[in-house]
């Protein structure tokens, strides 16, 4: 039996475990569906009239940004789940089994791709109803969806690390929000970067969120891409790689306490 084959099968077993939970504890499902819908509607109708977005209707400007933000939070399920596994002694059990060391984390982050897909689909439907329209060839739209899921996957690893580092499921969730929320707002997601004061603008321009949102506008709306598309893929892969390494290292030494 090959080590790699086992690692893949272990990961799938654990991804399946995470996905089974969704219909069984449907409270979580709300955060993949109702919450994104609420955000789309609030931003579109409350801020829509107040924010000037030259060249675009606000709903067209908004959708790529808000989907990217939602993707970055999708991984909170991983943080919550890992933190619970740790508390309940399941991590101890898994670590005592002859299974692949990364599988618990890989399984959870993989399952997040499933739930993130539900969010993306829901948001696109609601966006279209609220007036959003794609302005790009199908291949670009598909590439855009792939990028969204990849970016979400990268943040699942960030959340995996957060979940293993915090003392309780609640703490892991609020830590995640404190780190990620400001990053998403100081980016091109909701307002044009040019409208920000100098210091913020300088930060927003190098913020990976801006790069990913710009890439999404290029792929969904045909906006000028510059280097944003390659940049977005590079950032996603980079974040995934760094945090996967950090999280697996942390997992190997996980101590219940």
């Amino acid at each position: 039996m090959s080590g790699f084959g086992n690692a893949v099968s272990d990961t799938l077993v654990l991804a399946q475990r995470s996905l089974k939970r969704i219909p069984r504890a449907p409270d979580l499902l709300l955060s993949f569906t109702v919450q994104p819908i609420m955000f789309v509607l609030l931003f579109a109708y409350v801020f829509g009239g107040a924010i000037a977005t030259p060249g675009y209707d606000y709903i067209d400007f908004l959708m790529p940004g808000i989907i990217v933000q939602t993707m970055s939070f999708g991984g909170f399920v991983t943080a919550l789940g890992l933190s619970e596994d740790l508390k309940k002694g399941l991590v101890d059990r898994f670590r005592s089994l002859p299974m692949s060391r990364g599988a618990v984390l890989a399984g959870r982050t993989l399952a997040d791709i499933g739930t993130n897909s539900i969010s993306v689909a829901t948001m696109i439907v609601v966006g279209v109803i609220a007036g959003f329209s794609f302005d790009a060839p199908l291949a670009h739209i598909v590439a855009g969806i792939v990028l969204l899921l990849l970016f979400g996957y990268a943040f699942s690893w960030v959340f995996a690390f957060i979940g293993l580092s915090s003392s309780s499921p609640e703490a892991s969730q609020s830590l995640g929000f404190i780190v990620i929320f400001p990053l998403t707002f100081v980016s091109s997601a909701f307002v044009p970067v040019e409208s920000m004061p100098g210091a913020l603008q300088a930060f927003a321009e190098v913020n990976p969120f801006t790069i990913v949102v710009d890439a999404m506008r290029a792929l969904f709306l045909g906006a000028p891409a510059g280097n944003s598309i390659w940049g977005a893929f590079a950032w996603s892969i980079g974040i995934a790689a760094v945090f996967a390494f950090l999280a697996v290292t942390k997992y190997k030494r996980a101590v219940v306490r």
Partner: protein
Amino acid sequence: MRGIAASDLAIEAEGLRKSYKDVEALCGIDLSAPAGTVLALLGPNGAGKTTAVRILTTLLPPDGGSARVAGLDVVSEAAQLRSQIGLAGQYAAVDENLTGAENLEMVGRLYHLPKGEPRARAAELLERFDLSDAADRLVRTYSGGMRRRLDLAAALVARPPVLFLDEPTTGLDPRSRIGLWETIEGRVAEGTTVLLTTQYLDEADRLADSISVIDHGRVIAQGSSDELKDQVGGERLDITLESKDDAERAIAALEPIAAERPAMIDGLLRMPVRERKGAIAEAVRRLNEAGIGIDDVAMRRPTLDDVFLTLTGHALEPDEGEGADGEEAER
């Protein structure tokens, strides 16, 4: 040593040490268990039992010392070792949002059992642990006792030759406790080596071939239940005479073989024995020779409670804080 080749030891640890920041949890403990036997780590809360189990199951590297389980080093051969052990930790480690059957199948697949085996094994274990009726119910609807049993079943999925059970019966009602004891005895009869930790003397007494008494990270006594009791001494014969009028003559006849002068207490002739072996036969012989009628003779032995009190100067009392559901206990 006990005259057993090292290779026959399923568990052997030498000088294990572990500190957490400012707490020294283990201060160099030695443990050994021949294959097919039960070793109990007996000690109060905070003694270091869980830390020892975590080291032996590869979850935690020791700061010092070495240990081998099933002939494999717990540090350098950890990966191979994991397929040889089963662990049921201190709190039932089962997934609330899976059914009982799904939990066991998942564990079987993570042990990489051959195709089809995880499902068959799950059904078999659910049956054996009296959980068949609840097999397809979500575990979050299970009682504390049911979770405990499922947790133990999960440790047995791959039929591991060495089993680690950390306080397996803490928080169980008396009936479930006895059921669990019988299961453990069944595994041992099939050749499994078991290390279990417990705060309960009767549990160690009933299950263990060998007991290591642990307190403050040290093994303060080690041996079979009988050996530990001998170490404390205090064994005595309680003799009921046919006629109390024979008391003085009986005392005179028994004094030469008694550890202290026998005495009549509450109508019983009480004789502290010097050596347990042959004591009853010798006492009966002497009384017969003196023509004294005997109604009843019983060897009264100190309990492990007495052992612990003598060794540590404090009684061994399970923590009051343990709730009815072991897995609910939190800090």
